[in-house]
C-alpha cells in the first residue's frame, strides 16, 4: 500500500498542447483550498505541441514540497508513454487510464491497481466539438480523481466559476465533464482510495506562485525600471510577469505613460549592454536569462566588474552543457556566475530556495549591486522559476527605501574639490559614482581598459594593480553584506553537517527528518550567497564530515568551498543529482545511508 490521507503523489501523463495544464492547475488549486500543503511540478518537453508531458502533484500534511521519488496515483493519458508510466507507479499504487481503447496486452503488473475509465468515449458522447472533446477529457480525469481521492467538488465548482467569470457558459461544460468522471468512478470503483485528500488546516495565509513571477514582483518593488532581455527557457516567464505587473502598477495614472521600459534585445550580448547602459544612466536595470545567455553576456559582465557598473542578472538555470535540456532543471551555473568573464573576475551570487526568496533576493540584488557597484547574480532554476510553489503570502515593508549606494549628486559635487571615480575614500573598497546629466564636475570616462584610481587611462604597472587590489577590498566588504546562510540544528549534537542551496532545500529537510527517525543526525547549513561569509567558515570548521548536496555533475559549490575556504576536500562528500528532474528527498537519504555504510565497513 502506498499513499495515505493527505500524503500522496499524483502524476499525470499527457500530451502537450491538449489543454491539460488547466486541468492540472484545477486539481492543484482544489487541494490547496482544502488546506492541504501541495506543490506541482511540470515536467515538460522543449516543444510546443504533440510531445509527452507530465505534471506531478504532491500533497503532504507535513508540508514537504520536494519530489519524494514516489508515485501513488498515475493518470496515464498518453498511450505513447504508457509502458514507462506504468513502470513508474510505486508498488501498491494506482494507475488510471482511458479505457476507450483497451490496452490489455500492455498491462503486466500485479502489484498495483489499474483502473480503466472510458474518458474519450464519455466525452465524445456528451460534447460535439472535436476541440472541446479533447479539453473535456482532461477535465473529466479531474472528476475521476475527485471521487477516488476525495477532492471537494464544491471547491472545483467555485474554482471553475472564478476561472470562467467572464464566460459563464464554459462553467457548465466543465462541470459536466467533472461529473462524468466523478459518476463513473463512484459507480465502478471503491471510492475513496487510501491515498486521498481530507480537508485540513487553513491555507489562507499562503499563495501558489512560481519563482519567476515572484522575482518579477521583486524587481517591481525594488524600483527597477529598465528590463532588457532575450527570450530563453526557462527565464522567459520572468520578463512576461514583469511586463504584466508593470502594466498593472507602473502606468502614470494621469497620462497612461509607462514608468518602465522593457526592451527585447537582439541577443543576450545586447541585453547585457542595455542593462549596463541603463544602470550607468542611474536607472535600476536587470536581465533575466539562463546559462547560455550568461555565456554570451560574459564579456559585458567582466566590463561591469572592472568599470564597476551595478547590474542585476537573473540566471534561471536549466540543464547544460551547451543547449542541454532546456526544459529540465539543474544547478549547473554556480561556477559560471561566480567567475563569469575573462581575467580576474568574481561576482556576488545569491541562491534563492523558493519563490519567497526570489522576491526578497530580487530586491536585495538591486541594493547590493548599487552598494557594491558590481554585477550581482540571482541564481534560480527551472524548478523554482517555472513550477507552482505554496509559500506564505508575500509581505512588503512600507518603510523600505532602496539603497542606491554611494552616488554624488550635483549638490554633493559642489562640496568637494574634485571628483575621482575610482578613489577609495572610505576604505571599504567602494568608490563614489555620478549619474550622467547632472553636473559637468561629475563627468568621467567609463572604460574597460586599464585605468587608475582617478579614472584616467593607464598602462602603468602600479596604477593598474592599485585598482584591481582595491576591488579585492570591495570583495571583502561584499562578504559581510550578502545574505547569511540559514542554519538548521540537529536534535542531537553531531559531527555531521549538510550544506545545500537553492531548490534542494525541501528535499534536504525531508531527508534529514527521515534520517533522524533512523537516528542519524546532521546540522544543515543552507548557503544563500557567494562570497561565503564567516558563518560558512564556522560551520565547516565545527563539523568533521559535511555532505554537500547539489544538482550538478561536477559538485560546483563543493569546488567553490574548497577554493575559497580552508576546508579539506576529504571531509566534503558530494551528494549529486543531475538528471534534469528536481532532486527527490529519497536521493539524499540513500546517499547518506550509503556513505555511512561504507564508512562503517572501512
Amino acid at each position, binding site marked *: 500500500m502506498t499513499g495515505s490521507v493527505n500524503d500522496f503523489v499524483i502524476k499525470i501523463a499527457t500530451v502537450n498542447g491538449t489543454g491539460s495544464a488547466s486541468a492540472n492547475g484545477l486539481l492543484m488549486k482544489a487541494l490547496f483550498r482544502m488546506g492541504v500543503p501541495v506543490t506541482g511540478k511540470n515536467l515538460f518537453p522543449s516543444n510546443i505541441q504533440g510531445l509527452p508531458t507530465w505534471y506531478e502533484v504532491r500533497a503532504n500534511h507535513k508540508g514537504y514540497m520536494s519530489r519524494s521519488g514516489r508515485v501513488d496515483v498515475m493518470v496515464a493519458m498518453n498511450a505513447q508513454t504508457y509502458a514507462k508510466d506504468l513502470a513508474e507507479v510505486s508498488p501498491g499504487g494506482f494507475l488510471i487510464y482511458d479505457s476507450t481503447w483497451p490496452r490489455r496486452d500492455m498491462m503486466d503488473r500485479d502489484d498495483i491497481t489499474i483502473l480503466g475509465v472510458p474518458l474519450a468515449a464519455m466525452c465524445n458522447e456528451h460534447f460535439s466539438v472535436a476541440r472541446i472533446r479533447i479539453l473535456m477529457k482532461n477535465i473529466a480525469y479531474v472528476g475521476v480523481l475527485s471521487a477516488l481521492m476525495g477532492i471537494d467538488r464544491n471547491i472545483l465548482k467555485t474554482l471553475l466559476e472564478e476561472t470562467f467569470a467572464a464566460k459563464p457558459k464554459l462553467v457548465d461544460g466543465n462541470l459536466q465533464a467533472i461529473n462524468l468522471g466523478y459518476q463513473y468512478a463512484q459507480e465502478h470503483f471503491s471510492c475513496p482510495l487510501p491515498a486521498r485528500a481530507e480537508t485540513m488546516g487553513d491555507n489562507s495565509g499562503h499563495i501558489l506562485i512560481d519563482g519567476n513571477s515572484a522575482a518579477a*514582483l521583486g524587481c517591481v518593488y525594488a524600483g527597477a525600471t529598465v528590463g532588457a532581455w532575450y527570450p530563453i527557457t526557462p527565464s522567459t516567464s520572468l520578463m512576461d510577469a514583469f511586463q504584466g505587473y508593470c502594466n498593472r502598477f507602473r502606468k502614470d495614472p494621469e497620462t497612461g505613460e509607462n514608468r518602465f521600459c522593457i526592451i527585447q534585445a537582439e541577443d543576450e550580448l545586447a541585453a547585457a549592454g542595455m542593462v549596463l547602459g541603463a544602470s550607468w544612466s542611474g536607472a535600476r536595470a536587470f536581465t533575466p536569462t539562463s546559462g547560455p545567455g550568461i555565456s554570451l553576456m560574459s564579456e559585458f559582465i567582466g566590463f561591469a566588474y572592472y568599470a564597476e557598473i551595478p547590474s542585476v542578472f537573473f540566471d534561471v538555470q536549466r540543464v547544460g552543457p551547451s543547449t542541454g535540456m532546456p526544459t529540465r532543471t539543474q544547478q549547473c551555473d554556480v561556477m559560471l556566475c561566480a567567475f563569469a568573464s575573462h581575467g580576474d573576475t568574481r561576482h556576488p551570487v545569491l541562491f534563492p530556495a523558493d519563490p519567497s526568496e526570489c522576491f526578497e533576493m530580487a530586491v536585495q540584488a538591486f541594493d547590493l549591486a548599487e552598494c557594491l557597484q558590481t554585477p550581482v547574480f540571482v541564481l534560480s532554476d527551472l524548478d523554482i522559476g517555472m513550477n507552482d510553489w505554496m509559500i506564505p503570502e508575500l509581505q512588503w515593508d512600507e518603510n523600505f527605501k532602496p539603497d542606491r549606494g554611494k552616488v554624488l549628486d550635483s549638490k554633493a559635487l559642489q562640496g568637494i574639490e574634485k571628483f575621482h571615480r575610482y578613489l577609495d575614500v572610505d576604505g571599504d573598497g567602494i568608490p563614489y559614482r555620478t549619474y550622467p546629466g547632472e553636473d559637468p564636475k561629475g563627468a568621467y570616462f567609463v572604460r574597460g581598459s586599464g585605468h587608475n584610481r582617478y579614472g584616467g587611462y593607464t598602462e602603468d604597472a602600479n596604477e593598474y594593480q592599485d585598482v584591481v587590489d582595491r576591488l579585492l577590498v570591495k570583495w571583502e566588504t561584499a562578504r559581510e553584506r550578502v545574505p547569511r546562510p540559514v542554519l538548521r540544528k540537529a536534535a542531537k549534537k553531531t559531527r555531521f553537517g549538510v550544506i545545500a542551496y537553492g531548490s534542494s532545500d525541501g528535499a534536504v529537510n525531508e531527508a534529514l527528518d527521515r534520517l533522524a527517525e533512523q537516528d542519524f543526525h546532521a546540522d544543515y547549513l543552507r548557503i544563500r550567497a557567494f562570497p561565503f561569509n564567516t558563518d560558512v567558515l564556522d560551520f565547516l570548521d565545527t563539523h568533521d564530515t559535511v555532505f554537500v548536496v547539489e544538482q550538478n555533475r561536477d559538485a560546483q559549490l563543493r569546488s567553490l568551498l574548497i577554493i575559497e575556504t580552508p576546508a579539506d576536500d576529504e571531509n566534503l562528500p558530494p551528494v549529486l543529482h543531475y538528471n534534469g528532474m528536481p532532486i527527490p528527498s529519497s536521493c539524499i537519504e540513500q546517499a547518506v545511508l550509503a556513505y555511512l555504510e561504507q564508512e562503517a565497513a572501512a
Partner: protein
Amino acid sequence: MTYIAKPKIDMPGERRNEIGLRQRDYEGALSTLCAGCGHDSITAAIVQAFWELAIPPEKVIKLSGIGCSSKTPAYFISGAHGFNSVHGRMPSVATGALAGNRDLVCIAVSGDGDSLSIGFGQFGHAVRRNINMLYIIENNGVYGLTKGQFSASADPGSKAKYGEVNRMKAIDPVATTIALGGSFAARSFSGDREQLVPLIKAGLRHPGCAVLDVVSPCVTFNDHVGSTKSYAHTREHYYPAVHTDFIPPSKEIKASYDEGEVMPVELHDGSRLLLKKTDADYDPSSRSAAMRYLEEHSSQGQVVTGLLFISPDLPEMHTISGTAAQPLARTAYEDLNPGQAALAELQKDLK
C-alpha cells in the same frame, strides 16, 4: 586608449555661445591618434557643432566601442559622461542609457570594424529601434590598431598597404541604414568641415537614429595608391550630392531658397534643415530613390555625400513603447513602488 590632458588656456575675447561657453569648453583630452588622422578632423567638427548648438556638456553622453574611432570620445566635451564600451557593442549601451534617461543627448562614435563587422548586428538594431542618437561611423576601410587588415567596408579592388587586394563587396552603412528602414542616413568626408558640421548638428537634432558615415582616411595604413579610402582617392571621387544647412529653432530663417534647388525639412523641435541639392531631381524623403541614387553613383566609383535620406516622422524607441516623458532614472521611488496594499490585492488571485 591613451590619454593626455589638454591644457585649457584662457584667451581674452573668445566668442561664447548662448549658454556662455567657449568652443574650447567642448574640447577633451589631447588626441593620441596619428598625425593627420581623419578622425581628428571629425573631432574638431563635433566640438564646433556642439558649441554652435549650445548644448550643456553635462547633458551629453558620448559612447564608443573599440578601435581608433572609439578613442575619440575622450578628445571632445570633457564635461560629458563618456562610455568606452566593448568591441561592437556600443549601440546596446547607448540604448540602455537612453532607456534610463531619455533626456540625455547621445553622440556615439564607431568605426567600420566596430559597426560593420563585429557590431553589425547591434548597429542594425539601433537603426531598427530608431534610438535617439547621433551614430557616427568613422570609416577608413581598415583595422588600424591591429595594423592594417581590411574591414568590411573596404571596396572591392582596393589594395592594402602591402599589396593584398580585397575581392569582397563592401558594406555601405548608408545603404544599409536606408534598407533597414532607418530614419536618417548621411555621408560626409573628414576633410570637408563645411559639410560635416551641419550634418552633425542635423543628426543631433534628428529625433531618432541619425547614421552619419564619415569617410576618414587612415594616414598610416590606408592612404596609399590603390586604397579607395585614401585622401587622394576620396577627393577625386567625392560627389557632394545634398549639402545641408542646419537652422536651430531659435533663429529666424533668413536664407531664402529657390524651389527645386533647396528643400526645407522641419524637425520636431522646430529646427530646420535646408537641403541644397546638386541634382535637381534628388528627393531625400524617398527611400527607394535614395537607394537607386546610391547604387547608380557607386557603380561609377563615386562616393556620394550629404544627407541622403531623412524621415523625421518615424517614431523612436520611447514613442513606440510609450515610455513616460520624465526620465526613468529621475523618477522617484514613491512613483515606482506599488506598496503593500497592492501586493495584498494581487495575491488574492493566487489563492
